[in-house]
C-alpha cells in the first residue's frame, strides 16, 4: 500500500530548523563570571543612580541564597552561572548592500511568513532605503506617541529620564526574591523596554510595529515594565515570527505589567527562537518571569502567546487580580517539535472581589517534543465571587511526543466558581483521512487541522499577527522538502 500516513507524519515532524542564522556582532564584553564587582561595572556603564545599584546588589545577594528550581519537567545540562558573560553591548551589525547577500533559505522563510520586504531588510541587516529608514520611522512613531503623552523607550533611557516612575513600580509585581531566574535578572538585567500610558489615554498605535523593527537586538537578561494609568489602554506585541538565533543560550527575562483603575494592557508574544538542531543541540534556554498586576478597579490584563521556538521554555505569564472586578486572561499556543521541551502555563491569583479569569491553552507536541502545562488558580480567602474558566487542550502528532497537564486549584473562598476542562488527543487519523480523501495532502492537512485547533487563541492576536502566526505554525511543522 501507499507510504503510511504515520510515516509521513514522522517525516514531516522530524524536519530540521533549517532557517536559523547567526550574525556576527562585535561586542563590548566584560569578563565572564558573576560577583558584586561585575554588577557594579554594569551599573556604572549604564550610569545608574545609587538606589538602582543597591537594588541590583540586594537581588544578587538573594540570588546567592537561592537554588535553581528543579520542579519542572525540563531536562537540561547544568548551567554554570560563573561561566557566563553578563554584559555585552551590541555593536552595529555589518550592513549588507542588498537582500541578495542574505542566505536565500532565510529569505524563503521570510517570504513564507509573509514578512514585508522592508522588514526583511531590517531583520537581516541590509541597509534600507530612505523611504523606510528605521531612524526616521522611529522618529515619526515617537512624535505620535509623544503627542499622546505616551512614554515608550528603552529601560536604560527610562532610568535616566523617568526615574520616579521606575522607582515607584520596578519590582512591585515581580519582587527580586520571586524566583531564581527573576533574582538573577534583577541583579544583572541589561536593558529592555519601558512603557507608560497616562490617565485616560488609549495608546494611538499598536506598540508592536515599532518594536518589531528593533526586535533584532534582544538581550539576554531583558527587563520590561509597562504601566497603564487610570483608564488607559495599550496593546503591546513582543517578538517576531522571523527565526531568531542568539549566541546566548540562556535567556532570563522579566516582564512586569501594572494596570490602575479601568486600565487595560493586552500583551502579545510571538516567539520563534532557535530551537536547536534535530537532536536538540544548541537551542535557546528561555526562563521567563512574566506577571501582571491588576491593581485598580475593573482593570484588565490579557496575555496572548504563540511559542514555537527555544529548546527549553520555562514560562508562566500570570495575573494578580487585586482590584475589585478586575479581569485576567491567558491565551496560549505552544508547539514543541523534535527535542524541544516546554514547561509553561499561567497563574491567576484572585484577591479582589468579583474578579474573573480565563485560561485557554493549546499545546502541540510533534516529533519527540514534550509539553507540560501548569495552571494555577488561586482564590484568596476574602475574594468574593471569583470566576475562572480554564480550557487546556493538547494535541499529539506522531507517536513519540508527549503532553502533560497539571492544573492546581487553591480555592479558599466558597463563593468561587471554577470551571476546568482538559483534553489530550492524537491528531486524528480520521481527520487526516477525511482531508486526504478530499485531495489535501498530509502535510497541508496537518497544518489545516493544527491551525483549526489553535483558532480560538489566534483570534486574540492583533489581526496582522494572527495571519503571521498561522503561517509560522505551518513553517514550524513543515517537512524538509520545503
Amino acid at each position, binding site marked *: 500500500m501507499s507510504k503510511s500516513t504515520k510515516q509521513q507524519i514522522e517525516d514531516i515532524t522530524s524536519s530540521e530548523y533549517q532557517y536559523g542564522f547567526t550574525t556576527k556582532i562585535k561586542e563590548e564584553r566584560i569578563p565572564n563570571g558573576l560577583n558584586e564587582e561585575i554588577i557594579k561595572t554594569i551599573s556604572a556603564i549604564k550610569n545608574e543612580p545609587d538606589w538602582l545599584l543597591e537594588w541590583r546588589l540586594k537581588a544578587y545577594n538573594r540570588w546567592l541564597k537561592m537554588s535553581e528550581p528543579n520542579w519542572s519537567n525540563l531536562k537540561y545540562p547544568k548551567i554554570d552561572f560563573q561561566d557566563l558573560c553578563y554584559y555585552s553591548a551590541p555593536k552595529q551589525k555589518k550592513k549588507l548592500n542588498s537582500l541578495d547577500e542574505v542566505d536565500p533559505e532565510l529569505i524563503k522563510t521570510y517570504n513564507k511568513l509573509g514578512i514585508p520586504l522592508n522588514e526583511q531588510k531590517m531583520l537581516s541587516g541590509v541597509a534600507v532605503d530612505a523611504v523606510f529608514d528605521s531612524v526616521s520611522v522611529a522618529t515619526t512613531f515617537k512624535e505620535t506617541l509623544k503627542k499622546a503623552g505616551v512614554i515608550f523607550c528603552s529601560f536604560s533611557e527610562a532610568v535616566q529620564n523617568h526615574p520616579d516612575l521606575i522607582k515607584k513600580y520596578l519590582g512591585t509585581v515581580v519582587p527580586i526574591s520571586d524566583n531564581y531566574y527573576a533574582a538573577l535578572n534583577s541583579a544583572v538585567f541589561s536593558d529592555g523596554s519601558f512603557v507608560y500610558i497616562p490617565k485616560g489615554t488609549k495608546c494611538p498605535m499598536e506598540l508592536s510595529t515599532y518594536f518589531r523593527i528593533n526586535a533584532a537586538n534582544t538581550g539576554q537578561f531583558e527587563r520590561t515594565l509597562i504601566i497603564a494609568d487610570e483608564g488607559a489602554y495599550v496593546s503591546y506585541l513582543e517578538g517576531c515570527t522571523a527565526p531568531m538565533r542568539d549566541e546566548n543560550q540562556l535567556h532570563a527575562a522579566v516582564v512586569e505589567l501594572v494596570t490602575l483603575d479601568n486600565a487595560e494592557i493586552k500583551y502579545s508574544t510571538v516567539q520563534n527562537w532557535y530551537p536547536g538542531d534535530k537532536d536538540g543541540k544548541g537551542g535557546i534556554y528561555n526562563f521567563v518571569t512574566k506577571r501582571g498586576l491588576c491593581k485598580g478597579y475593573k482593570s484588565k490584563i490579557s496575555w496572548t502567546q504563540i511559542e514555537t521556538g527555544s529548546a527549553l521554555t520555562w514560562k508562566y505569564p500570570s495575573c494578580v487580580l487585586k482590584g475589585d472586578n478586575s479581569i485576567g486572561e491567558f491565551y496560549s499556543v505552544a508547539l514543541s517539535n523534535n527535542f524541544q521541551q516546554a514547561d509553561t502555563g499561567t497563574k491567576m491569583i484572585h484577591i479582589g472581589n468579583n474578579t474573573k479569569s480565563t485560561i485557554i491553552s493549546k499545546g502541540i507536541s510533534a516529533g519527540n517534543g514534550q509539553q507540560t502545562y501548569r495552571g494555577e488558580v488561586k482564590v484568596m480567602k476574602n475574594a468574593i465571587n471569583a470566576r475562572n474558566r480554564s480550557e487546556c487542550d493538547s494535541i499529539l502528532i506522531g507517536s513519540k511526543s508527549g503532553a502533560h497537564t497539571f492544573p492546581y486549584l487553591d480555592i479558599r473562598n466558597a463563593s468561587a466558581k471554577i470551571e476546568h476542562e482538559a483534553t489530550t488527543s492524537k491528531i486524528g487519523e480520521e481527520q487526516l483521512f477525511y482531508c486526504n480523501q478530499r485531495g*489535501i495532502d498530509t502535510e497541508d492537512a496537518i497544518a489545516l487541522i493544527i491551525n483549526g485547533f489553535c483558532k480560538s487563541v489566534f483570534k486574540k492576536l492583533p489581526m496582522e499577527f494572527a495571519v503571521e502566526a498561522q503561517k509560522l505554525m505551518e513553517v514550524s511543522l513543515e517537512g524538509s522538502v520545503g
Partner: protein
Amino acid sequence: MLKIKNLTAGIDDKNILNNINLNINSGEFHVIMGTNGTGKSTLGHILAGKDNYNVHSGDIIYKDKSILDLSPDERAHEGIFMSFQYPVSIPGVNTMHFLRTAVNSIRKSKNLDEIEPGDFIKLFKEKLELIGLKSEFSKRSVNDGFSGGEKKRFEIIQMLLLNPDLIILDETDSGLDIDAIRIVSNGINAFRNKNKSFILITHYNRILNYLKPDFVHVMLNGTIVKSGGKELAVELEEKGYEWIK
C-alpha cells in the same frame, strides 16, 4: 471505470472482505445493501485508500490502472470521492477554507491555476442553496456541531464542488428526512452523467425511488452474495436478509 477483482482485505490478518468481485462501467449507478457490520463501509474506505486496512489479495483497477499503491489524496486527485457514513468534525477549520483548499489541491494535481477566491465563494453559495443549507454554513467549522442531516448534505456539497468521477455514497440517506432525501437526490441526479459512476450503500428503498439504480448487490459477511436490478431492493425490503441466507 472500476474493476474489483477477488478482493480480500481487512485489518491486520483479519479479513473483513472476502473475495469481492464487482465491475462498474462509466455512467452506471450501483447499490450495495446488507446487514450491519457486513463490510460495506470497509469496502468504501479501502477504495478510498484508508491506510489502516490491508489488502491481502486481489486488485482494484480504476480507469484501467491498479490503484493499490496510490495514497488517499492521490486517489482523490484521480477522481474518487467518498461521502462518509460518519463525517468527522474538524473544529476551527472553516468550511469554505477547507473546501477551497481541497478544490485547489485537486486543481494543482491537474496543473490548473488556483480558483479565484471570489469565484469560489459564488460557487460555494450556489451549491449550499441547491442542497438546502443556509449561507451561514460558509462561516462554520467543518462538520462541527452539524446535525446528522446537515453533515450528509455537506458531503453532497463537497461532491458537487470537487466534481469526482467515481462516487461512493455511504448511507447518505440515513439521518435525512423525507424532504431532505428528495432535495439531496435531485442534487445527485443533476450531477449524474455518462462519465460518472456511483456506488450507493443504503438500507432503504426510499431513496432508490429517486435515484433509479442500474444494479443492486447484496453483501453478507464481507462478500457479494446476490446481484440484480432495482426489483432486488424491493424484494429485500419485503422479505429481509433471512430470505437470502
